[in-house]
């Protein structure tokens, strides 16, 4: 792992991309920044532009309009950029897989590095998922 990836494990800049969510996962992600969970103490923060992002946090079920947007976002992100799929919809589309407006799941549009299932995943589960991703990156460095 190069110095950039090493820096990532210290402080993650996350960009939140919602494809077609019910907003529950999005609100729980925002909840991470409020006093009870306060992930900013771990150095994690949300950024306003994908070009500053280390991690793309994806929620929701991709539909025809958001599919292209997600692909574009991933291409615009400076690599390495890891992708976390948050919520059951982003992990596997659940009941929306039969919808006429949903072409494919998230991992067929962008490569996903971590899946955090749940509907919505509790903030604790999200933190655990991010920690797992960081540990995965650290293990990759050791190899």
């Amino acid at each position, binding site marked *: 792992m190069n110095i950039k990836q090493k820096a990532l494990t210290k402080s993650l800049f996350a960009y939140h991309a919602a494809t077609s969510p019910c907003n529950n996962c999005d609100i729980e992600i925002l909840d991470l920044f409020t006093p009870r969970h306060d992930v900013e103490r771990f150095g994690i923060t949300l950024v306003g532009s994908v070009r500053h992002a280390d991690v793309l946090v994806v929620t929701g079920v991709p539909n*025809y309009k958001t599919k292209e947007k997600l692909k574009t976002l991933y291409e615009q992100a400076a690599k390495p950029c890891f992708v976390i799929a948050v919520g059951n919809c982003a992990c596997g589309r659940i009941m929306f897989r039969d919808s006429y407006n949903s072409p494919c799941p998230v991992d067929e549009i962008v490569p996903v590095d971590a899946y955090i299932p749940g509907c919505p995943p509790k903030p604790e589960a999200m933190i655990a998922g991010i920690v797992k991703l960081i540990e995965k990156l650290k293990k990759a460095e050791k190899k």
Partner: protein
Amino acid sequence: MNIEEKIKDALCSRASGWSRHSPKRVYFSVRKEDILETAKLLFKELGMRFSIASATDTPQGIEILYHFSFDKTGEIFSIRVLLEDKKSPKIDSIAPLFPAAEWIEREMWELLGIEFSGHPNLKHLLLVDDWPAGKYPLRHER
């Protein structure tokens, strides 16, 4: 006169098929030619609030229900209109009467293929602009 009587009085034989299945839910039918006059009566003269319209693909045709809420009593008056020509269902738009109807008519057009004559802005609301023409997701293709 209560509100139901007022509507019956104003529309006479143009309104038919009256049914009050539960205390606050009233349904009646009009012909599609009379929809503008009926909507105007309910919205402008009787002061009802337009809640929404719902369209269904039935074997007899495309049935549109316009749901108006009379908030003073909590009743909902649903106007039923049947468009028998399923190949090209057409009806007057009620959006010129009040802007609240604009979006739902666009939605009914793109999901069921109903043409609303006189609609100020009949284009896609929810689906992508290049959604295949003639493919209506809420039609029951048997």
